[in-house]
């Protein structure tokens, strides 16, 4: 059960490696003639579209432009080719760009003033600077020096467009324009105020940009969208399925556990037959015998709960200690982060408790009704 929950959570984490509740908008080509214009016109996005959309769609929480190009980057006597991006400060929040300690992502000031600063992925940092801290060092892109202000903290990311974020370099949008002066931008990132509004936002972006660029808002190809919210729904459905499956396995385990406890209580009654006989002979009333049985059951149950908790909790947390290779993660990224759920544990124990209670009462009643003579003879 813990694995099922953990997988679902890891899926969310991995997915949010790209970004949480994110809609990405790309330009395209019209496929329908509109207002006398032919089909097949290219539609591009421009920096001003960002403000245009933000002003007109109140459901948008954050929006950021992004341009990128594959460029030569050098530093520390090394030369590599990487995708370099230009964007704004809001990008960090949408795309889970968490800086390593001692650094930061681009801020609004960097963007407004076009500062020559860069935020780099951890693999870029490793490729250029080895294990040293690159913050404060210079990297040269297209002969322009940029100061590294932060390195991306390791994360698992299962969705991407220009490769994993570990390999990317981010510059303030207007600083980026100095090394890549194309006016159009590659994409726009939008984060809705509420995930449920994502489809609505898509429709409004089509309508608004359609009005501006004169294309049919129903034209599926004029703009393209990558709606992670919709993707996540599908992914979550799959993982929910796995969770339910593991839940069934859990229920079967529970059943086996219950059979075990019932058996134990039964065995206990047999084992204690002589003892019950002695107690009856020296004057124990039926209630006393039943009480004793219940206390024993309760004790077994409490002990089981205690150890069950300790064992389950520790197994889950020991597994969680296992490292995940962030540079090329596979199924282990999902399996090695099981989640210990107190609610599930409590529910499990409640069910087991009822079963234990029931399995305790019958042997107890039987034992208390037994003839003291027969119990005494029992060896």
């Amino acid at each position, binding site marked *: 059960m813990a694995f099922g929950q953990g997988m679902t959570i890891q899926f969310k984490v991995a997915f949010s490696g790209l970004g949480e509740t994110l809609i990405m908008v790309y330009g395209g080509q019209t496929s329908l003639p509109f207002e006398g214009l032919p089909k097949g016109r290219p539609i591009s996005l421009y920096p001003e579209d960002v403000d245009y959309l933000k002003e007109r769609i109140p459901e948008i929480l954050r929006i950021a432009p992004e341009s990128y190009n594959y460029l030569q980057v050098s530093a520390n006597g090394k030369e590599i080719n990487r995708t370099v991006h230009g964007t704004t400060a809001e990008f960090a929040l949408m795309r889970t760009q968490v800086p390593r300690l001692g650094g930061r992502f681009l801020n609004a000031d960097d963007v407004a003033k076009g500062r020559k600063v860069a935020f780099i992925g951890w693999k870029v940092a490793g490729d250029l600077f080895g294990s040293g801290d690159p913050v404060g060092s210079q990297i040269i892109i297209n002969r322009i020096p940029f100061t590294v202000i932060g390195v991306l903290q390791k994360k698992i990311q299962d969705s991407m467009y220009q490769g994993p974020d570990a390999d990317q370099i981010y510059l303030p949008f207007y600083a980026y324009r100095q090394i890549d002066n194309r006016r159009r931008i590659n994409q726009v990132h939008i984060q809705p105020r509420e995930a449920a509004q994502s489809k609505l936002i898509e429709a409004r972006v089509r309508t608004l940009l359609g009005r501006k660029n004169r294309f049919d808002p129903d034209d599926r190809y004029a703009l393209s969208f990558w709606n992670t919210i919709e993707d996540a729904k599908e992914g979550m459905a799959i993982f929910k399925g796995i969770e339910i499956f593991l839940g069934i396995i859990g229920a079967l385990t529970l059943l086996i556990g219950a059979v075990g406890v019932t058996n134990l209580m039964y065995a206990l009654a047999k084992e204690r037959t002589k003892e019950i006989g002695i107690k009856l002979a020296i*004057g124990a009333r039926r209630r006393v015998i039943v009480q004793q049985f219940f206390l024993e059951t309760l004790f077994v149950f409490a002990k089981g709960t205690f150890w069950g908790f300790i064992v389950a909790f520790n197994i889950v947390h020991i597994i969680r200690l296992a490292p995940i290779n962030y540079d090329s993660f596979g199924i282990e990224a999902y399996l090695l982060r099981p989640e210990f759920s107190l609610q599930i544990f409590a529910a499990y124990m409640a069910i087991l408790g009822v079963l234990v209670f029931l399995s305790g009462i019958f042997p107890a009643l039987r034992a208390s009704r037994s*003839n003291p003579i027969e119990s005494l003879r029992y060896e």
Partner: protein
Amino acid sequence: MIELQGITKVYKTGSQILEALRGVSLKIGRGEFISIMGPSGSGKSTLMNIIGCLDTPTAGEYVLDGDRVAGLSFDQLAAVRNRKIGFVFQNFNLLPYATTWENIELPMLFDGKNAHKRKKRISELLNAVGLYDWRDHRPSELSGGQQQRIALARALANDPPILLADEPTGNLDSRSGEEIMAILTELWKAGRTIVMVTHNDRIASYSQRIIRLLDGMVQD
């Protein structure tokens, strides 16, 4: 004290019917020391169990200390066993996981006596059987004689008027046996009614009167 009138006990196992007792009538007065003797299968254990309210007769009348036992419920019988009868078994029947102190305490717990009374009585009894220093030991750490003395102390916990002993020396060496018999004799002299099952003539000679059973009937 103990009055049996025409007691019959029939056991049925499948199609087999076994008549363990066939019309046993006897009277045991207050303060008597009686031995019940007889060969194996003569019904002496069954008789003992009926006297001890551990078993109920198939037919016949049993009056214990003025009360008819026949009409009593399971828990009422338990109360009779608890207050009026002290049992001493051949194999001691002590609770193995409990200390000697706790074993003696048990009948008083069932009777609902308070902690102060229990403590006082247990100390008294442990001193009387000379095992006070063994109060925190478990039965397995004691010799057979010591275990039987603890069992005797337990039987006396609620100060019952009647003591039933089923082969009390059967599992003991002769010296320990003598010790137990000495205690029983003392208890009898103090006014307690004692009924003992044995097939050892020497042990039976401690008693005032011997009741012999054969094939479920009292022999005169």
